[in-house]
């Protein structure tokens, strides 16, 4: 609950299995980011509990936060820092020794094609490069649980596909991933299971096909439109006459 009295989340009960790629879908203001912020310590839940690999996110925040890497939807980079410093400080905040930080930074700069920019201040980077750096920063301390809050919002097609490839690979290597996105195709492509959140509550969860079946529609997009009460926007209706 916010100090204003607004209830952001109500009775949310969600379990994500280790190694799973889990999607959280819902309209703006549904409570996706609040849920993420509660898990990462950026918001204080007024009731209930969140456990990350068995560690309570409030009582044992040290162990819980060590396990989490957060790539927020805002490009919240410190413009005083260079690309390398951004990663170096982040690693330091998570207790990584200097030598380990240096090796990991080189590895991530290479993986995200940022090596040539390592000495540049973050404010000079393009939007796409900032997005890569945000993801690299989230991965810096080798989290077991990666939270991607709308990671491909506003990025071009090439970078989106590149990011998909990368997160698929780290998921295959064992990292559990929670993804929020407004791109349903993205969720469909990447996620093992998906939950719909609306008005602070989880209203449905399952695989893409299970959700479609539950709403009696053809695909995830139509299921989502049912959730938000806008089924008249379904391509089956809107684009029905344009096919040959």
């Amino acid at each position, binding site marked *: 609950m916010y100090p204003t009295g607004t209830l952001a989340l109500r009775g949310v009960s969600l379990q994500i299995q280790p190694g799973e790629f889990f999607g959280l879908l819902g309209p703006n203001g549904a409570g996706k980011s609040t849920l993420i912020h509660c898990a990462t*310590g*950026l918001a204080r839940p007024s009731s209930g509990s969140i456990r990350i690999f068995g560690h309570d996110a409030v009582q044992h925040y*040290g162990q819980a936060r060590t396990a989490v890497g957060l790539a927020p939807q805002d490009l919240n*980079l410190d413009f*005083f820092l260079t690309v390398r410093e951004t990663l170096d*400080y982040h690693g330091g905040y998570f207790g*990584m020794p200097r030598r380990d930080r240096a090796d990991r930074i080189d590895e991530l700069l290479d993986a995200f094609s940022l090596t040539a920019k390592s000495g540049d201040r973050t404010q000079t980077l393009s939007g796409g490069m900032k997005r890569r750096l945000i993801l690299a920063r989230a991965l810096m301390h080798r989290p077991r649980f990666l939270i991607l809050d709308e990671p491909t919002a506003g990025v071009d097609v090439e970078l989106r596909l590149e990011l998909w490839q990368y997160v698929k690979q780290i998921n295959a290597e064992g990292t559990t991933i929670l993804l929020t996105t407004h791109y349903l195709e993205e969720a469909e492509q990447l996620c093992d299971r998906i939950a719909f959140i609306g008005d602070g509550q989880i209203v449905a969860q399952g695989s893409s096909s299970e959700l479609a079946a539950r709403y009696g529609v053809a695909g995830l997009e139509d299921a989502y439109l049912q959730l938000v009460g806008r089924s008249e926007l379904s391509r089956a209706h809107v684009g029905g006459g344009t096919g040959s």
Partner: protein
Amino acid sequence: MSAAQIRFASLLRREVNRFMKIKRQTLGAPLLETFLYISVFGAALGSRIDQLHGIDYVVFIIPGLIMMAWAVNAFSNNASSILQQKLQRAIDDQLSSPASPIQLLLAFSLGGFLRGMLIAMLTFGAASVLVGVPVQHPLVLLPALVLVGFFFAQAGVLVGIRAEQFDDLSFAQTFVLQPLIFLGGVFYSASLLPQPYETITHFNPVYYMISLVRYGFLGYSETNVALSLLFLVVAVTTLFLVNLRLFTTGYRLRA
């Protein structure tokens, strides 16, 4: 180094790195300002004022200037650093790390504290060369300066947390901090003021701080040294506990 030590060192390194990257603004400008005060009030006007309590006027004002440099820079550094990171939401990187509230508070506090200390030391060095500044009671001076620096570092953290825009910082610095410091007796002895101004000055906490620091340097004090030190310890502890509470609850930092 343990993980906790690496974490704290990184948090503090970030704060020091911030002000070292903009040295002209964070070190050059305050040093020039202090030099101008010494030139105008000490050398130019001071030649007409002669002595205060048996001490050359230019020497009399230097302890207050050193303290003011430490205080203003500790305050403004911490307030700006926290607000700037809050506005960019870059602070989320530290807040979502395993750093404890006390680690975060100490790192943010010490950033400004160290900047203020650096400027105070450079001011002292320059003043010693230019006019010669005695240090009569180092065992009082050192704790007094450290406590004053830490007090204003804490005040800066408090204002930075509460602030929502840079105008809030400017208000606190221009309308609260500067008047308290200037009217606390940096440039004069409160005993020279007519009533009721002399009595009013005794309600200004900065008056006791300047008096302590002046005693440490020059051996002259208008207040009870032990009581002033005690007052300072209580004030610093109170402010530290208030800030620790804010970091623990996440007031205006976490949603």
